[in-house]
């Protein structure tokens, strides 16, 4: 079976700093994979290269066998890669529903007009914002803005969803809700790569984890085993605790 997404030797240098160094892994359809690692280990840089925000210095990214590495973000988005952002990014001057309609309007099979509004309502209901489309997006609470961002990402009809610390900054109750929401996407068959520091969420959602340190992959496997891996613990906590 061809993997949905495949990274080969992915590298990104910023001047003398190599943020991601020869990163390779595959994700098959329907997998929910956690991308872990200490701050500065290159997780977000990797995500940015997959979504097109950054061009790789070297290496290949392919989606269903088609090379997408180095394409501009709007092309990558139309090929079926959607993402959310580490710091939530809603469209502040638009209403909640227009935040979603905007994404429906520019995907590869675009929707516009009444069809887009109906689909946007359905997506808002999907993320728990039923009937709140008319509200100003900026006035929503933090978690609701995250929901809008998620609905907007889903609106592009992605085959791969990239979540960059989508659960960060939520209180325990919201976290529970958030985990359930992403769990429901997983149960619906969505392929997700999530960068996450909340270990409860990683354990609950990800069957498999990839751990990065200093730009390289140091572990890749079943979540429970990976989190017990001495090298992973060393990367997170330092040598003394290993």
């Amino acid at each position: 079976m061809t993997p949905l997404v495949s990274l080969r030797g992915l590298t990104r240098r910023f001047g003398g700093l190599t943020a991601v160094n020869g990163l390779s892994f595959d994700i098959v359809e329907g997998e929910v994979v956690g991308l872990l690692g200490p701050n500065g280990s290159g997780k977000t840089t990797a995500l940015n290269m997959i979504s097109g925000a950054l061009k790789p210095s070297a290496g290949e990214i392919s989606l269903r066998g088609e090379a997408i590495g180095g394409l501009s973000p709007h092309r990558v988005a139309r090929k079926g890669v959607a993402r959310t952002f580490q710091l939530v990014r809603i469209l502040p001057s638009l209403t909640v529903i227009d935040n979603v309609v905007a994404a429906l309007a520019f995907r590869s099979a675009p929707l516009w007009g009444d069809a887009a509004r109906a689909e946007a309502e359905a997506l808002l209901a999907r993320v728990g914002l039923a009937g709140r489309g008319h509200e100003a997006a900026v006035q929503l609470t933090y978690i609701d803005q995250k929901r809008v961002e998620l609905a907007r990402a889903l609106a592009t009809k992605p085959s791969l969803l990239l979540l960059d610390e989508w659960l960060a900054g939520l209180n325990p109750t919201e976290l529970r809700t958030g985990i359930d929401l992403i769990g429901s996407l997983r149960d619906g068959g969505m392929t997700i790569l999530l960068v996450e520091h909340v270990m409860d969420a990683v354990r609950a959602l990800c069957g498999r984890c990839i751990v990065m340190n200093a730009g390289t992959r140091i572990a890749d496997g079943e979540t429970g085993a990976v989190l017990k891996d001495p090298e992973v613990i060393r990367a997170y906590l330092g040598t003394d605790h290993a």
Partner: protein
Amino acid sequence: MKTIIGFAVAAIAFGLLALAPFYLDAYGIGLLIGMTGYVTLASAWGLFSGRTGYVSLATVAFFGIGAYAVAALNETLPYPVILLVAAGIGLVVALIVGLATLRLAGVYFVIFTFGLAELIRQLVTWFETTVTGTLGRYIFLPLGPEHIYWQLLALCAVTLLITWWVDRSRLGMALRVIADDEVVASHIGIDIARTKIALFVISAVLITLVGAIQAPRWTYVEPAIVFNPTVSFLTLIMALLGGAARLWGPALGAIPLFILFEWLSANFPNHYSILLGLLFIVIVFLLPRGVVGLLERLRAPSAPLDQAAGTSAPAQGKAASQEVRG
């Protein structure tokens, strides 16, 4: 329903304006030509600059291209063909400029567009003096002032219609998303460069046509006349005063300012430039509050209230608050 009423009112207004030449003397028609010209320029300017935030001072570059195309071709081609050729030249120049400059941000874009107008003026001057050996050209077209006025009025209506359509189309949505957050825009599949270039080209072609249609008014044309940078500044100040991102905003700014400028030049012919400069300063002085106010309102929670009715009018809702401040 609101749309239908709006269209009906606009149609009646344009119909009445079209009848005006039958009741006015030559001076009156001349005033209407100037006013309609600036309303169209300011609206076309607002279509691009008001919706993207890229402040263009290239207005007179395209205006002059239109006028010069007519001056250069008026003895060789039939008039409608000349207009098409002028629009075509405007389109090509806008495409080249758009592709070359839309990576420039903020003040760099402003400076580039200002330089562009001057560059084209110097190029035309150089071409005329060294290649053709003349600096001025004559335009002899059998067009009365009322014909020019009707053409401009039609172009003005087309400009407003295009603006209305853009605000309701996917293109308009793309612009609003880009104005809000370019990173999000690109990640939901919006081709930012293409969107901006498309709008720049539409705006530039309309501006070119204003120059082309107005050209026969001059009879005698030379670069210093048709590439006068004051045109760019007047257009900008009119559109900003009225609210550049709103359908009717530029018109609302252009009409009073045009009348004021006319009155100033008629009553203070020797001090016109000084008064104009003072007026610019006063408006710009008052505008920072205005423009910042507009931008804050754009992002303000109250703005989308008008949009609750539906996606059919979001740009209006967004811009309505602008107008209040403008």
